[in-house]
Every structure is written in structure tokens, then in C-alpha cells.
């Protein structure tokens, strides 16, 4: 080999030629997929990736964290800016496999819709975004800047913020927004608002895009996390009463058997029973082009035989659209020759599903509840319920006023 030969002539000190010590060397073949563990927004995450998968793709496609945008994919535009081990970096220029044990923070970690970080609030106040495409990158770059140098002067901002391009705003409003935060927090930027270990994004949603987002093989078999309801106002509150033919005792016999109860819920399925009234389950919802597959944790916290009431906490995520947390109470009372079924739910939504709006979300939820009680009634009376299908495009459009469906479609087209 000629290079080696040439090198032989030029070296001054000799080192011993040695075989590769395999132990400490990580090696991944081009077509091999390996698990990579890191922390995203304070939560442990695992992605299964081949070497060429970038961090930006891993975040978006494997973890459903689509807040990190992709523009050029070669380092120029800054759309993909995230924090890696505390410093802002281009996610499109990093390989996911390089980052095991790294700490990553994305725009999702910065704040929540109901609890925005001051930087996010300031962007809103100063109209520092129009289309919003660059906004996650701008926010993460600005966060990095003010985190290291909180007292930075306004004059320095244009240069320091030049790493992320914006095609809409002309930058002045972005500089105004960041300058105000620098002025109001001269002694240190407030911490991110959504990096705590509470409100866990179920680890089960970590994995491949659609297949493994709900795949049983991805389920964390150790159990479910403690579910805590947010303090804020729920996104939707639902209270539904329905008269059914079955008697309370018949209904209760189904309700006290979680397996059978789950079969009454359209599109739902129990995946794992951990005992102790804790379960992993999934629900599929299809609304026109929208297909959501929620996988999450269910904890039945109360079963009252005397009042025929069950209360459950649910925490579920769809890989790309967001999280749902809900407290659901179902109670049955004797009424007339049959029973009255009452359901009350307080539902908190974050992520893109929150954009569906309250009315549509409650229409969908009410429709699901309607199908649920019908199925519950049938099963309680010993009929095998007509197959409960996930709320489907056709069924939904029949029940929900067309105008609402159009509004939803517009939102999806405009914002996706």
C-alpha cells in the first residue's frame, strides 16, 4: 500500500501497530439498527436507528417530536436547532448514534401551551413569527444565547441570532422579543417549563414511526408511571347521560371486568394488564384523513360496588400529534325499567390535537361515549355487541356537522 509505504519514511517516532481492542469500540454496520438511549426533555428515550439517521429525523420520525423542523438538512438554515448537552446545535448535522447518553432539549421541552416559557410568550407578544416554520429554531437558539449570557446587550442580538433564518418576519420582531426577555431576566433565563419527569410521554411511543408507535413489542413491561392530572383547566369537559335498557347490576358485571369493558370502547384494546388495576391500552381514532393511535397508561383508581361507579386516570400519546390526559368517571343508577349511565370526563390535550378545538374534541368524545354506552348495554344484556369500530371517517361525518369537519381539515392543511 503506497500511502503506508510513504508514511514509513516520514514518521519520527514509532508506535506499535496493534489490533483493534473491540471491547471499548462501538461498531454499527451500514444496514444495522441499534438502540440508542438518550434523554429528551428530561425523559429517557430510546430510538432504534441505523448509522445514517440524523438526530432531526430520530426526533421527528421515531419520537414524534415534530417541533424540531427540517429545512435544508445540511446545516445552513437552522430550523433544526436543538440543545445537545446544553449547547445549541444543528440536529441535521448530528447522527443519532453519536448521541447515546446525551441530553437533548427540543422546543417541546421549553414550555407547554398552557405554561409557555417567557421566550415563547415574548415571541407571541412581539409578533416574532408569521408562518412559524423557523420559530422552534429561533427559540432554541435564543434560549442557548440567554442561558449563557443573560445580560447580553441588544446591539449584539442580530449577530448572535444570525444562525437561524427567517423568511417571514424581517427579524426585527424576533430581536425585539429576545431583547425583552434579556431585559426582564438580566440575572438568568428561567428554566425550561416542560422538562420535568412528570407527565411522562409514554416510553412505549418511542420507536419506529407508525408500526412501533403502538406495537406491543415496544411496551415498557415494567408497569405504568404514576399519572398526575395537570392543575390547569381541562381542554374539554364532557358530561353525558344516557338511558339504557340493561339493569344496573347487569351493567356493573361488565364494568367490573376491565377486559370486557374495554371491548365496549370503540377502537380500544387492552394491551397489558399489570395487575393492581393498572393497564396499558390503545385507542385508534380515524377522522377523515386524521388517523390517531393513542397508546397509554390507564389506572382505575376507584371501583365502588355500592354506587356502581368507577373512576380512572388515563394518560396516552399519539406519536405525532400529542398527549391526552383524562380523568373519567362512569356511574350507573337505576332509572325506569333500565338504568341511567352517566359519564364525566375532564380531558387535557397537548400538542397538535389540541388544535382540533374544544367543540370538535367534545363531539368526538361524545360520539365515542354514545357508542360505548350502546355497546355496554348490549353486552350487559347478554348480546355480543355489534362490532365496535374506531370512530371512522364515514360515521363521524354523518354525526358531526359538515362545517366542523371542514374547519378541521383546513386547520390540518394549514398547520401541518
Amino acid at each position, binding site marked *: 500500500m503506497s500511502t503506508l509505504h510513504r508514511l514509513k519514511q516520514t514518521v519520527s517516532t514509532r*508506535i506499535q501497530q496493534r489490533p483493534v481492542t473491540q471491547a471499548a469500540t462501538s461498531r454499527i454496520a451500514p444496514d444495522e439498527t441499534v438502540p440508542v438511549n438518550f434523554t429528551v426533555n428530561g425523559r429517557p428515550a430510546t430510538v432504534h436507528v441505523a448509522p445514517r439517521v440524523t438526530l432531526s429525523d430520530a426526533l421527528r420520525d421515531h419520537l414524534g417530536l415534530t417541533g424540531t423542523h427540517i429545512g435544508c438538512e*445540511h446545516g445552513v438554515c437552522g430550523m433544526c436547532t436543538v440543545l445537545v448537552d446544553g449547547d445549541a446545535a444543528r440536529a441535521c*448535522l448530528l447522527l443519532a448514534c453519536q448521541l447515546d447518553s446525551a441530553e437533548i432539549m427540543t422546543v417541546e421541552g421549553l414550555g407547554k401551551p398552557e405554561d409557555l416559557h417567557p421566550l415563547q410568550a415574548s415571541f407571541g407578544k412581539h409578533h416574532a413569527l408569521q408562518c412559524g416554520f423557523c420559530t422552534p429554531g429561533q427559540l432554541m437558539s435564543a434560549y442557548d444565547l440567554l442561558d449563557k449570557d443573560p445580560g447580553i446587550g441588544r446591539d449584539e442580538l442580530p449577530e448572535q441570532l444570525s444562525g437561524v433564518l427567517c423568511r417571514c418576519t424581517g427579524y426585527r420582531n424576533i430581536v425585539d422579543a429576545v431583547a425583552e426577555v434579556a431585559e426582564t431576566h438580566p440575572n438568568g433565563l428561567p428554566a425550561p417549563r416542560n422538562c420535568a419527569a412528570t407527565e411522562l410521554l409514554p416510553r412505549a411511543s418511542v420507536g419506529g414511526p407508525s408500526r412501533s408507535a403502538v406495537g406491543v413489542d415496544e411496551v415498557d413491561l415494567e408497569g405504568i408511571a404514576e399519572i398526575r392530572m395537570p392543575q390547569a383547566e381541562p381542554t374539554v369537559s364532557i358530561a353525558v347521560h344516557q338511558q339504557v335498557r340493561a339493569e344496573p347490576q347487569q351493567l356493573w358485571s361488565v364494568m367490573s371486568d376491565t377486559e370486557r369493558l374495554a371491548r365496549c370502547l370503540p377502537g380500544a384494546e387492552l394491551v397489558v394488564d399489570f395487575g393492581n388495576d393498572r393497564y396499558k391500552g390503545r385507542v385508534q381514532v380515524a377522522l377523515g384523513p386524521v388517523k390517531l393511535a393513542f397508546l397509554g397508561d390507564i389506572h382505575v383508581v376507584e371501583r365502588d360496588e355500592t354506587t356502581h361507579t368507577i373512576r380512572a386516570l388515563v394518560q396516552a400519546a399519539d406519536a405525532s400529534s400529542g398527549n391526552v390526559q383524562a380523568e373519567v368517571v362512569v356511574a350507573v343508577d337505576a332509572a325506569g325499567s333500565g338504568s341511567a349511565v352517566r359519564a364525566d370526563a375532564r380531558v387535557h390535550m397537548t400538542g397538535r390535537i389540541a388544535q382540533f378545538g374544544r367543540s370538535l374534541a367534545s363531539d368526538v368524545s361524545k360520539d365515542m361515549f354514545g357508542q360505548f354506552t350502546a355497546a355496554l348495554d348490549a353486552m350487559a344484556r347478554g348480546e355480543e355487541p355489534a362490532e365496535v369500530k374506531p370512530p371512522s371517517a364515514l360515521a363521524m361525518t354523518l354525526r358531526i356537522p359538515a362545517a366542523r369537519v371542514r374547519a378541521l381539515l383546513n386547520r390540518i392543511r394549514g398547520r401541518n
Partner: protein
Amino acid sequence: MKPAPFGYVRPAEVGDAVAELVRADQEGGGKVLAGGQSLMPVLAMRLGRPATLVDITRIAELQQVQVADGELRIGAAVRQRRIERDFGGVVPLLSRALPWIGHREIRSRGTVCGSLAHADPSSELPAVATCLGATLDVIGPYGKRSVPAAEFFTAAMTTVLAPVELVASVRVPLPSSGSGFGFAEVARRHGDFALAGVAVSVTSREGVPRSAVVTAFGVSDKPQRRDLTRQVVAAVNAVGPAPEALTSQLVAATEELADEVVTTEGDSSGSPAYRRRLISALGARELARAFNSSMERSTR
């Protein structure tokens, strides 16, 4: 744009990294992966398709920065932003040049040695290393060698490195008393590669210039280092040290310099004539400033 498939190895020791490079060289070609800030775009655009990337960033030995024996020694895994943040002012010319490299987000990952190995002719660090007479420690299958920066860069994006070698560290001399520095460049936007730039180092004693070096970049296939001591001495004798007068007096010398070093063809961003103007204007100004700061540093 997604890169074509490649294999990935992350050795924990320098010797293993070299062994991996040798192995990769025999099996379809390998590339060192440091900060990835130049390599990843090349892969994404499929301008390069190495079969294997050898990630050197977790090799503890290469993560070291040391100030010893009159030098700042920077290991190959050390990122630009770390030098900027933790070693600011240790080598003043380096501190002046670093903020010009891309953006914070780029410097968070990009390494000092990676920029040297990449040898982009418009890059700041090759010019700084050349101007200051830095030394690169190169390691390969048959041992180590030390290469002065002046000999390291051979052409655009080409160095004396063999595919089985890596830069283990760069050693940059610390400033002596009575030294002053200048740095300037012009780019279309902040963070873009320079159309033209200069790195300047001057030493003086008791108001008399002892040495004056200008390194021009972005104007030819590699950094161009020229000794202008004689011209600076003559200009100081003629008009004294006041920066403005000295700058005007030096322009004739830097125009001559510019005529010699600007060899790139023009492009849409600037003609050769424009680049010559930049080199002569920036060169004269930075020489005058560097001389003045060298006097301050020697009288202190």
C-alpha cells in the same frame, strides 16, 4: 437530503482509531468524523460516500486542552466553542478569529482540528494556525509526526494527511510580550465563509517593529503567509505609530501583497479586483492596529 448508508465506529483510544482507519481504507474508504459540521453536509449532498465513519469525539486523550511549554495544545475532539468560552484570550488571535466561524450553533460541535483537517481555503483557523506558526501532531499506523502549519495545507481542501492518518492535536504558540494581533474578514452575511480575510501578528520592542506577518485567506487555494516586517518598519519610521496615518502609509505595501496572494478567479460574490481591495485595505488597517497593541503590551 439524506446521506447514503455508511458504517459507524467509535473507538475509545487513539491507537484504535488509527487501526479503524487502516481497516476502513482497505474496505471501501473511511473518514474521520469530528464535529461533522463540514462532513455531514458533504454526506447529505452525497458529494462523498465513505463506507465507514470513524468517530473520534469520545477518545478521552483527544478531549484534552493544555497550556504548557509556551503552547496551547488543543486535542482533536475539542470543540471550537469550548476554546472560545474557556480559553478566551489565551491565544488572542485565536479568540479574535473563532467568533467568525459560522454561528454559535456550528461552533458548539465543530472542532478546531477538524477545521484544519478540512482545509477550506476560506476558513479562519487554517489562516490563524499558519500566521502563528502552529504545529499539528499527526498520528498514523507507523507513528507520530509533527507538521508545521505552513507545510500542512497543500491545496484547496487538501493537506499532507494520508487517509489512514489523523490530526491528534494542534499546538499554538502563546503570545510573547510585545506582540499584537489583528484579524478581519468580509463575508456576505455573518457566518458565511469569507470573501477575503487577514490574520496579522506583529511584535515590537520599544516602539520598533521586530516582526510583522500577514496571512491572507479566501483568496487562493490555501492560507498565504507573508512577512512584511521591512515594510512596517519603514512605514513607522516615515509617519509614526498613529493608526490612521500608519494605515495610509502601509497601503502601498499591502496592495503589492494583494496582487501577489489573490489568485482565485472571481465568483458571483466578488471579482478578483474586489478581493485585492479587501486584502490591501484590511491588511493595512490590521497591521497598524496590531502594531499599536503590540506597543501597549510591551510597555505594560
